């Protein structure tokens, strides 16, 4: 069947199939098992995805310090060798972790953190716009896919009726979560400010109007208010004095997760205390480092410090739930291997996916590595995509959440997944 034809067929089927899920979601009393197509679907495990917008420089995250060419092509921005000042933290004989990611080392050591090398989207685009779109829709190369892959994942999980089964840490619903299943959005702010309608005075007035309405609007109201209340309640703590100080900084202007390490602590607490959370998504920006990228310190190092601290706090705050949580960190594409004339890097191709959580086969690097010699690079300049990101994400998510192959095919349609690649990424 023609690729496009297949998609169309899928599109129709998916819409038909998803509509009841949407309704079921809006009707709390409806059968929870409506979408548990497979008896084995896991009801306690969770998937958390962090998206690093702007294309993070993978070679500064997992640093090939053992390859002398790395220092030749990056005279200004290379991360120093382990043992040197602001040097990488040794992972093995070739690779080291960026020093700003030191908070993650305990997770590497307890074998719940790993990285998949040279993976990404097969589409050659170097446009942030197109590449993010493809990676979030989960169908590279095609624009007209109405939903994101995390929303399609939700439609494969049992509807547990919770208004917070999907959490979105950001300000707007990202492409990856778009679709018929609703998610609850909250901004990663150190101080949770309840919105106006949450004040009892105003809430009461609206409740009189909406409570008891047995229609979709009434149900949406009830769910929405409940989700807000839950999030406000769980995030009401003010944090440590240090975090409070950080809050002042973050409160000026737009709140950016890249400036607020507490995103991990908040999300971890929410997931731990609300067992019905099934998926969560965190949007982080600021990785488009064309100019003055920095090395062991500087622009990227600062962002990585926030990210590393945030992820480490996420693991801690999850507590025992960390064992049931699969955290994936991804970015739309990688950056050029060679540094540019502005001590930065330009848009590239392949990158690394980070994997974290109790189920992850951690403490090692996965995927193929051919070095960074000219002949190993994509178009002579970028890391290659040797593994399609769907072959990393798909089987892991399916295995972790107990989806059948048919269910996974609904999450990543139009693609022949390589199961063997993905499942080896989890502990057997």
């Amino acid at each position, binding site marked *: 069947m*023609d690729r*496009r*034809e297949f998609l*169309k067929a899928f*599109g129709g089927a998916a819409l038909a199939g998803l*509509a009841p899920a*949407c309704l079921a979601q809006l009707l709390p009393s409806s059968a929870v098992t409506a979408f548990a197509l497979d008896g084995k679907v896991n009801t306690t495990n969770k998937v958390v995805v962090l998206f690093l917008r702007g294309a993070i420089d993978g070679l500064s995250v997992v640093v090939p310090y053992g390859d002398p060419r790395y220092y030749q092509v990056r005279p200004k921005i290379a991360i120093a060798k382990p043992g040197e000042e602001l040097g990488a933290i040794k992972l093995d004989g070739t690779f080291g972790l960026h020093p700003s990611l030191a908070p993650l080392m305990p997770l590497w050591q307890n074998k719940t953190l790993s990285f998949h090398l040279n993976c990404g989207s097969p589409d050659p685009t170097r*446009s942030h*716009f*197109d590449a993010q*779109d493809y990676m979030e829709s989960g169908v590279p190369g095609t*624009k*007209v*896919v*109405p939903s994101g892959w995390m929303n399609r994942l939700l439609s494969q999980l049992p509807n547990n009726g919770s*208004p917070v089964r999907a959490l979105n840490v950001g*300000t*707007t*619903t990202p*492409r990856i979560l*778009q679709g*018929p299943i*609703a*998610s*609850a*959005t909250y901004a990663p702010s150190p101080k949770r400010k309840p*919105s*106006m*309608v949450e004040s009892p005075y*105003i809430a009461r*007035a*609206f409740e*009189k*109007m*909406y409570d*008891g*309405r047995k*229609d*979709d*609007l*009434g149900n*949406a*109201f*009830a*769910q*929405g*208010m409940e*989700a*807000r209340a839950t999030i406000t309640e769980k995030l009401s703590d003010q944090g440590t004095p240090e975090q409070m100080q950080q809050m002042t900084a973050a409160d000026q202007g737009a709140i950016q997760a890249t400036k607020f390490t507490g995103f991990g602590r908040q999300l971890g607490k929410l997931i731990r205390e609300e067992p019905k959370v099934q998926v969560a998504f965190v949007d982080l920006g600021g990785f488009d480092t*064309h*100019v*003055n990228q920095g090395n062991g310190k500087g622009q990227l190092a600062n962002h990585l410090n926030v990210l590393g601290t945030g992820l480490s706090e996420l693991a801690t705050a999850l507590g025992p739930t960390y064992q049931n949580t699969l955290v994936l960190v991804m970015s739309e594409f990688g950056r050029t291997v060679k540094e540019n004339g*502005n001590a930065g890097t330009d848009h590239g191709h392949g990158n690394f996916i980070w994997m974290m959580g109790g189920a992850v086969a951690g403490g090692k690097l996965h995927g193929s590595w051919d070095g960074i010699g000219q002949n190993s690079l994509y178009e002579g300049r970028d890391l290659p995509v040797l593994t399609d990101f769907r072959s990393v994400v798909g089987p892991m998510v399916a295995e972790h959440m107990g989806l059948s192959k048919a269910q996974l095919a609904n999450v990543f349609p139009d693609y022949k997944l390589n199961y063997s690649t993905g499942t080896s990424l989890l502990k057997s």
Partner: protein
Amino acid sequence: MQNLKRQCCFTLALTLLLGAPLAQAANLAKDKGRVSAQTKSEPDSEEAKVLHLLGRATFGPRPGEIERVERQGLENYLNEQLHPESIALPDSVRQVENLDAIKLSPSSLFISYGKPAIAMAAKNDNNNTKVDKEKLKVLFKESYGKIHDETVQARLVRSAYSPRELEEVMVDFWYNHFNVSMSKGLDHVWIGSYEQAAIRPYAMGKFKDLVHATSHHAAMLFYLDNWQNTAARAADPNAVNLPRKKNNFQGINENFARELMELHTLGVDGGYSQKDVTELARVLTGLGLQKGSGGGPLRPNMEQLRSQRQALRAQRGAALNPGQRRNQVVQEYAPAFSGGINLTEANTRLGYYFDESRHDQGDKIVLGQKISRAGKSSGEQEIDQVIDLLCRHPSTAKHISYQLAQYFVADAPPQTLVDKLTKRYQETDGDIRAMLDTLFHSSEFWDQKYRGAKFKSPYRYVVSSIRATDSQIDNVKPILGFLKQTGMPLYQCLTPDGYKNTKTAWLNPDNLINRLNFATAIGTGRFPGLVTNIQDPAAIADACTTDLSPKTIQAIKDAPDKLKAPLVLGSPEFMLY
């Protein structure tokens, strides 16, 4: 559901909203001249019909509008709206046409607000050749910000205040049909021109003119990559010498051809094959952007710019502020951007350039029809030929009819209406005005079961709130912020299919709570960016074009005075139309 008749309901609402002595309420009501016939509540009174029509053919009634249309007569009103050119525009609306983002041609916009021009201006600023990249970033941001704000300002002002109400609704409809996202690179500077030059003039004209204009506008050519679409065997030999452009002209790019058939004309089940997509892509080869010397998008002639810059520097004494400097530089250098190509009026207006040298010269067969040109005429004629072919196709008639019926009548529109519209499309060679005339006079449009059955999109919700409260737009940023929060940032739908207009697309818990926050803010006159001064919550209740339920009325009655307006705007009935 215990639906009260609208008028009866309105009287109740009015009384309860005011919460004041009944007598006062009654007096006010009489003053408004609106509920004098309250005792008669026929199922389909003139008033009920006006409400329904205003709910669908406009972005929601403005204060006093229901009475005005009742006086004018529904048929007269409709006829006037179907001929928007007959309605004079107030200066406050007309003046948006003077904004650069709206009035300039795509090439002028690129020259004045694109990166090369800004970079030039910055260089000229520093006499040394090194320009601080961070500073440049700030300049780009400023320049893009200006164009962005002008573009959305123009749209919001027109949607909210233009008396050509149906035309504004149609602009929204067609924009989504031929969606271009301003988030994609250069499109940022071209969106205003795209709507102004390619959509607006044809919103109620012939469908094929819309297809022609949108397919030739720089914004669409860039968005769906056709500017790169090049005959496979005639890859531009000059292009390989251009840094970072070497991949641009290396063969067929099917992206636009596919969407032209799937989204713009035939529809997803329109009966075309992959072979048709490829053949159409071949027809469209060479239809691209205006270019400088050597290919690629319009870019400055560096040699010429350099000499001009030196001359300018030599003669210029006093320092200028950054704005003056940019204007001066842009003016002085403008000739260097034209690339020495003779342009037609249409080239200039829409920003396209047809490059015969990149066009596939072979014969093509699209939908079983041979597309070939007569004699030595330009390959451009093949494109006109194929647009005609697509627009005359029965699948296109059906596709457009379905979409209009869904937008104006019901999420799952009645097939009988789709058939009527299809017939009218075919009879009139795709005359949009004629189709709308059929639609608004159809029994389906007036069918009781479809009244109030549509759920407002976030955009419609915001605009209808601004209209209902007669708010003035002071700053578009907070409004855009709200639209972004609700998943419908203006001009930023990423996918080419545009924003949906169905309930399933927009009704979700988070979105509803966001709306209630918006309602609370605007209803208490505290929404930043809007100047709202509500004297009479009852007048806003007017803007609910669906019946208020007893529950809603009771809730408003029980609420403190200052929450009455927020409750009206946040009521389930105000979400529907």
